[in-house]
Each structure stands twice: as structure tokens, then as C-alpha cells.
């Protein structure tokens, strides 16, 4: 049997979905007069057919009650009742008023012979899940940053894909993995720091990610059982003992992201992503990459704005916060970073 190509898979999927949806009536039903509906489906690939009654919905709102109720029940991980912030010894986070995104600044790299992409913009609603909690030192490029983030990826268990390694580690509940990006040049397949821990708490809702610049794998693994959740945000009792300040993630009613790029005269490309965000978003995003060895972690843009300089095996990543947004520039390692930063032009 030959392996289907992507095109064959997509064509087959389109045909199957066309068939599946062909029974949908064109005429809309009355919204206030909903009937009981039941799908009886034979579960294929079983020795004995199993009939599954899928839904039995009586009145308007019943689906919503089931769905939303289930969502709320699942909303918090199993650790949610462990402690309150005052129990943890960690400083309580301060509420941050919601913000709406201002018009994002426009960023270009104005170098001789360079051409600018047409930017694309995406707008999204505020995330429903508990916010990131960040522990960090002073400044925009502290040696240690710990970011605990909850994302909606319950059944989206990570799988190694060649661009990172993934090893299981013990977790207080559910499952956890430690991931490392991989330097994958010819002849080299080397995991690099920092690690990222993905923790599926086992309640069918959240995937908690823990990123820690300045933390070893062992530090992060040992930290998992100490994380507590108060129903609003994660806390870490060790923050106080480590002299790390807790800073609250800023809430956004909605966010915007504008992606663009500059193709340099030599054909290489600088990617520019501008996203609604504050200093805390900058700390969170920049914690994904290690500091550049042998290079100052900060740079100054032509307008005097301070930026954080990180790197992965292929690129520099430069971040700064400006006009209610976090800007990320991704620059190939082979380029003269200082010359590119000197050519950055920001307009509001």
C-alpha cells in the first residue's frame, strides 16, 4: 500500500467532509423551538459495534448549559485547591486593569537595498484561561526569569518533531515532559537550553508550561510539585526565598499582532512581529531563548529604547517594549546585528 501524499489526504478529507455535511438542511430551524436530537453512530474499527447516543437536547440553552458547565468545571487544574497566595509566602500579584490594544507601532529596518514586506495583522480576543504568572528580577533582561503559563491544549500532547527533544518527567498530577530545542546542523543534533516543561495536569483542560531562564532542568522539574494554583493564577513559594519578585501578567481585552519583514540586500530576511503587550509580555516572550554568550544582553535602539538580545542556534531575537506593544526582531546570526539595530525605524 502506498503512502498517501498530502494532496491525496486533503482531497479525501474534503470529499468525506462534503459527504458528512451534505445532510445539513439549508433552511434554518426556529431558534426558540428546538427538538430532541440524537445521533446513533456505529463506532468503526471495533469488533462489536458500540452505539453511542450523542446528544439529547430538549430546549434552547441546554447545550450551552452542558457545554459551558463542563467548561467551568474543568477550568482549574487539580492543584487549584492547594493554597491561596497568602499561604505560599510569595508576594500577591497586583490586579492590573484591563487594557485595549492601542494602534500598534510600525517597525521597519531601513537599510540600503532592503525591501519591506506587506504587513499582516491579526486581532484576537482575550484568553479565557488563567494568566501567565512571571517571576523575574529587575530590569528587562534579568538573569533569572520564571514564567508559568496556562494554555488551552488539553488533548494536544506534545510530540517530538525533530526540532526539539522531549523527555517525560514525574508530575504531581497527569503527565509532564521537559523539552529542549535542538541544534540540528549537519553532523550535530544537540539539545540546547533553556528547557521548557509542559505539564498536562490531567483534568482535561489545561497544559501548563513552565519556562525558566537561569533555571536548570533539575530546577524546573523540582519546582513542579511546588507550584500552586489559587483559582486565578499560579504561585511559587520559592519565589520569595530566591529573592525573585512576582510580577502580574497584564490582562488584555483583546490583542493585535502585526507580522512583517524586511528582506536585506543579501537576500536574507529580518522578521518583525509586533504584538500588544507590556513589559511582562516582553519578559515572557524573551524567556524562551537564552542570552547570547559573549554578548551584552541589552542593546539600545536609535531612539534610546532598551532592547533584550537573545539567540537560538540560527537567529538573534531582539525584543523591546514600546507604545503598548512588544516588538520582536528575528535576525539571522550571520548578519551584523548592530548595523541592523541602528537602522530600525519605529513610527506610531
Amino acid at each position: 500500500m502506498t503512502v498517501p501524499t498530502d494532496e491525496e489526504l486533503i482531497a479525501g478529507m474534503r470529499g468525506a467532509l462534503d459527504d458528512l455535511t451534505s445532510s445539513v438542511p439549508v433552511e434554518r430551524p426556529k431558534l426558540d423551538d428546538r427538538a430532541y436530537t440524537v445521533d446513533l453512530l456505529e463506532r468503526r474499527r471495533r469488533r462489536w459495534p458500540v452505539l453511542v447516543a450523542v446528544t439529547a437536547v430538549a430546549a434552547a440553552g441546554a447545550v450551552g448549559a452542558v457545554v459551558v458547565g463542563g467548561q467551568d468545571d474543568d477550568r482549574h487544574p487539580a492543584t487549584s485547591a492547594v493554597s491561596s497566595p497568602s499561604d505560599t509566602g510569595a508576594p500577591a500579584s497586583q490586579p492590573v486593569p484591563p487594557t485595549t490594544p492601542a494602534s500598534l507601532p510600525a517597525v521597519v529596518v531601513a537599510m540600503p537595498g532592503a525591501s519591506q514586506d506587506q504587513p499582516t495583522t491579526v486581532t484576537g480576543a482575550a484568553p479565557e484561561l488563567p494568566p501567565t504568572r512571571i517571576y523575574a528580577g529587575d530590569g528587562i533582561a534579568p538573569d533569572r526569569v520564571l514564567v508559568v503559563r496556562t494554555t488551552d491544549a488539553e488533548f494536544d500532547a506534545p510530540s517530538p518533531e525533530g526540532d526539539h527533544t522531549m523527555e517525560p518527567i514525574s508530575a504531581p498530577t497527569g503527565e509532564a515532559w521537559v523539552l529542549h530545542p535542538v541544534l540540528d546542523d549537519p553532523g550535530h543534533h544537540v539539545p540546547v537550553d533553556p528547557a521548557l516543561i509542559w505539564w498536562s495536569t490531567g483534568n482535561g483542560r489545561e497544559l501548563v508550561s513552565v519556562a525558566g531562564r537561569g533555571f536548570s532542568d533539575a530546577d524546573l522539574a523540582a519546582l513542579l510539585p511546588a507550584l500552586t494554583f489559587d483559582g486565578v493564577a499560579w504561585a511559587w513559594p520559592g519565589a520569595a526565598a530566591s529573592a525573585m519578585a512576582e510580577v502580574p501578567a497584564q490582562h488584555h481585552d483583546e490583542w493585535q499582532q502585526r507580522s512583517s519583514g524586511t528582506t536585506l540586500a543579501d537576500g536574507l530576511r529580518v522578521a518583525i512581529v509586533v504584538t500588544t503587550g507590556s513589559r511582562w509580555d516582553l519578559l515572557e516572550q524573551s524567556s524562551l531563548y537564552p542570552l547570547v554568550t559573549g554578548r551584552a544582553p541589552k542593546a539600545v535602539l536609535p531612539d534610546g529604547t532598551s532592547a533584550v538580545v537573545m539567540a537560538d542556534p540560527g537567529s538573534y531575537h531582539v525584543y523591546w517594549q514600546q507604545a503598548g506593544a512588544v516588538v520582536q526582531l528575528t535576525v539571522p546570526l550571520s548578519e551584523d546585528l548592530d548595523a541592523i539595530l541602528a537602522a530600525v525605524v519605529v513610527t506610531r
Partner: protein
Amino acid sequence: MRTMAAEAEPRTGFDEFYRRRWPDAAKWATALTGRPAVGQELAQEAFISIRARYDSLANPVGYLRRTVVNLSRSWYRSSAREDARIAAVAKPDVVAPQSSELLDALAALPFRQRATLVLRFWADWTDEDIATVLECRTATVRSHARRGLAALRQEIEP
């Protein structure tokens, strides 16, 4: 490039909006859940939600897309848990491939991968639209598509 915000259509009353958008919404939800009756229920639920706030919505179509995907995701969660319980007592067996084998394989994917494949390759949404409703970046959508196709292929291979 098309975005959700840019897709706002000329303003009509809710009834007209419901009439025009019902088929798409019901088909999206059906494709996302894999079950026609559930899809129609969820589409109705989405319109009930929109009706209550229709006059205040700047982009009803964008709101409809998001609501249908969110309701389908919520249903998918509860359905997956139910399936896991059933699977615990029903031993799987391999039978000959069927015409709907692809739908089975699609149903076995994590929701985000399934939603990405359905919305990108069948409903012809843009990556930006999908990123908006899944609250992720467009690069993540492309990653979901790549992983989803690989997982789909793995599911249907003997």
C-alpha cells in the same frame, strides 16, 4: 490579506443574518464535531448567543466563527472523555478500511489539529482567521496543519 475584522459585511437585521449564515455555521460545526445532529445543535446555540448581542457586535461573522469553534471545542472535550470511557470496555480491532476511515482518523486528532485541517483545507479559512479563533499565532496554525496531516496519515496506515 483577509482578516476577521475586514470581513464585516453590510449590516442586516439578525433574522437576515441568521438566514444567510445558518448553512455555513451548521456545516462548520458538523465538520468540526463529525456529527450532523450535534453540529446543528451547536450552530443553533451559536445563533442564540449572537442574537442576544447582535446589535452591539462590530463583526457578527467573526463572532459566529469564534462561537462555533468554541462550542465545538467544548463539545469535543466532553465527547473525548466519553469516548475514553467507552474505549476502556470495548477492545479495538482492525477492520477493512471504509469510506469514512478518514473521518475516523480526523476524529482521533487533538482538537486544534482537527480544527486546523477542517477549517484550512475544507472550509478554506485563512491561516489568520484560524489563528484568531484558536487564539494562536499563524505559525502555530501551520504547525498544526503539518502535524495534523502527519497524524492523519499515521492513523490510516495499516
